[in-house]
């Protein structure tokens, strides 16, 4: 960077331990948030909101959740989409069945419910380690896919298996759902974008603080070596379950947002194993144990197929090429990129970012 830590002295421990120690970083963060809230909201197109910004933020939150389990605590999980499914269905049923339920509260509670499910499926982690643990989260994944299909109550007995979420579900205050402002707000992609953005920022701040707190340090100790962590007195069982709870809380909220803010309907088919792997890719590509990486990974993995499709449309003319051909090629390209990235930069984009920052810091004096 063109600014450095050198010469910036702090006068108290509180200032030393703040989230962003550098004044310039703090300003950049504020500017970025302001940019996202005001400039993007005012200028971006509908396509930008609904097809790019909202899904990336939603998937970013899910990635962050998975990163807490895999990257920070070292507990392999392949059930992300299943936990998102629990979150989405919880939000739907809470709002459907409780009159005074509001969207923010429903998002929070659906996260809590998914978190509870996460604790149950995290319990085996106390005994099973390493790859053997994927059995537990895969069980969660397939259980979610099955249970919401087998019990139509969860879908309010809709025969088609897909519920489109009615407008009166979108209420920020009870009884306010039919006001013109509320309807206009939720109908517009800007409104949904602002909600997603706010939730995402809150969750990122919470996560950032969690990982530098006692809890986060315990997670990392357990990740690095759980026996050693136990020896120095860290409650391993509690730490692991906590990690599963928070991780699935994030996934649950992401699932609720996926339905309410992104696609606008509820369908258990979209929360399949493939999506779990997609989120896993986002974690790996972005960088294990990095908050920024979670979002960089989400952007990259989500945007690549779009870039490939659009690029081939642009080069060869839209519709001239068989969609199956494009799909197969994009699979090949994505697979290759993942392998190359793993070989070249195992730390993912977060490591690339850190090393380029370091290069800028010493530039032009050293290479």
């Amino acid at each position, binding site marked *: 960077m063109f600014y450095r830590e050198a010469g910036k002295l702090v006068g108290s421990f509180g200032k030393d331990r703040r989230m962003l120690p550098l004044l310039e970083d703090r300003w950049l963060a504020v500017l970025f948030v302001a940019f996202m809230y005001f400039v993007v909201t005012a200028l971006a197109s509908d396509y930008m909101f609904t097809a790019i910004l909202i899904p990336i933020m939603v998937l970013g939150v899910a990635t962050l959740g998975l990163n807490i389990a895999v990257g920070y605590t070292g507990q*392999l999980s392949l059930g992300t989409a299943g936990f998102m499914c629990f979150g989405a269905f919880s939000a739907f049923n809470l709002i459907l069945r409780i009159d005074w339920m509001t969207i923010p509260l429903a998002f929070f509670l659906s996260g809590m419910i998914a978190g509870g499910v996460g604790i149950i499926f995290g319990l085996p982690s106390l005994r099973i380690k*390493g790859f053997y643990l994927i059995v537990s989260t895969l*069980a969660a994944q*397939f259980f979610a*896919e099955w249970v919401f299909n*087998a019990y139509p109550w969860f879908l309010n007995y809709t025969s088609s298996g897909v519920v489109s979420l009615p407008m009166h579900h979108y209420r920020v205050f009870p009884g306010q759902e039919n006001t013109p402002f509320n309807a206009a707000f939720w109908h517009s992609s800007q409104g949904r974008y602002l909600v997603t953005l706010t939730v995402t920022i809150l969750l990122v701040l919470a996560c950032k603080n969690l990982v530098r707190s006692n809890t986060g340090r315990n997670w990392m100790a357990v990740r690095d070596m759980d026996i050693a962590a136990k020896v120095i007195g860290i409650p391993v069982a509690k730490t692991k379950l906590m990690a599963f709870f928070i991780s699935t809380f994030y996934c649950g909220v992401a699932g609720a947002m996926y339905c309410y803010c992104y696609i606008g309907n509820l369908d258990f088919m979209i929360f399949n194993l493939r999506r779990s792997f997609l989120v896993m890719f986002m974690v790996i590509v972005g960088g294990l144990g990095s908050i920024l990486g979670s979002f960089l990974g989400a952007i990259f993995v989500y945007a690549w197929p779009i870039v490939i499709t659009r690029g081939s449309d642009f080069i060869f003319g839209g519709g001239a090429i068989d969609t*199956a051909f494009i799909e*197969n090629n994009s699979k*090949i390209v994505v697979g290759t990129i993942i392998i190359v990235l793993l070989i070249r930069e195992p730390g993912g984009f977060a490591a690339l970012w850190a090393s380029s920052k370091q290069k800028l810091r010493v530039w032009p004096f050293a290479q």
Partner: protein
Amino acid sequence: MDYAFFIEVLVGGLLSGIMYSLVAIGFVLIYKSSGVFNFAQGTMLLLAALTFVSLTERMVNFWVAFAITLMIMVVLGIIIERTVMRPLANQSLLSLFMATVGLNYFLEGLAQGVWDSAVHGVNLGISNDPIFLIDKFPEMGLDIIVSYFDMAAAGIAGLMILGLSLFFTFTRTGLSLRAVSDDHLAAMAVGIPLSRIWAIVWAVTGVICLIAGLLWGDRVSVSFTLTSAVLKGLPVILIGGLTSIPGAIVGGLIIGASEKLGEIYVAEWIGGQGIEHWWAYTTALLFLMVRPTGIFGEKEIERV
């Protein structure tokens, strides 16, 4: 409870479990020798079966097609080892796992891009007739039906396992393979060429994938759904232990039996069909709670 019916379900389950074991053996081979949890197994199955079917559909003789596919799978195994696994040596297990997931995407696109994504039938000439056991062996007194195809598949699996264990026990390569799986560093120290061993393992896995892919293809047709075979193989190897070939067999039998029994006897009172996916994983979970590294898995001794 209908006793004969129970036996019939059980036997059907055990035999279909052998099909799962077929997939699982490939997994175990790779994990044992290189510590890689190969998620691309299912897609390799698809690639092999699809190549074979597409060749026979283009009027290539059965055995010629088999030989060509065999060669392609062996070459593919060697290429995978060269380009993906070797540069990633000494990376974390998770990176290696994710690399195979990337490989999975790549092969999926490749298989369907080179051939097509239509549903193909494959006929190996094994009859699919049911056998009425009471007609063949009246002295056993069991009035149950067994699928001839499943019996044949079990036989092929048995032959394959026999071949593999002979290969491991009596050849020089097999001996080096066992050495490598025991301890990479020690094996290298006594002069075993690690990368060549890995290439052999990937090639052998390619061959296993071809055989398993054809059997699965005959049973459920060759199409994209074949890749989900990997999901059937996962609980199997986890129950058996990631490093044990006998474990893959025993795990397959357990999962197969539990799946069929669960589908028949449990599904109705918890709300309908289709439980087999999570049922298999829950069974695996129960076994792992008792033995955290599977039935035959190596117990890791951890030191601080």
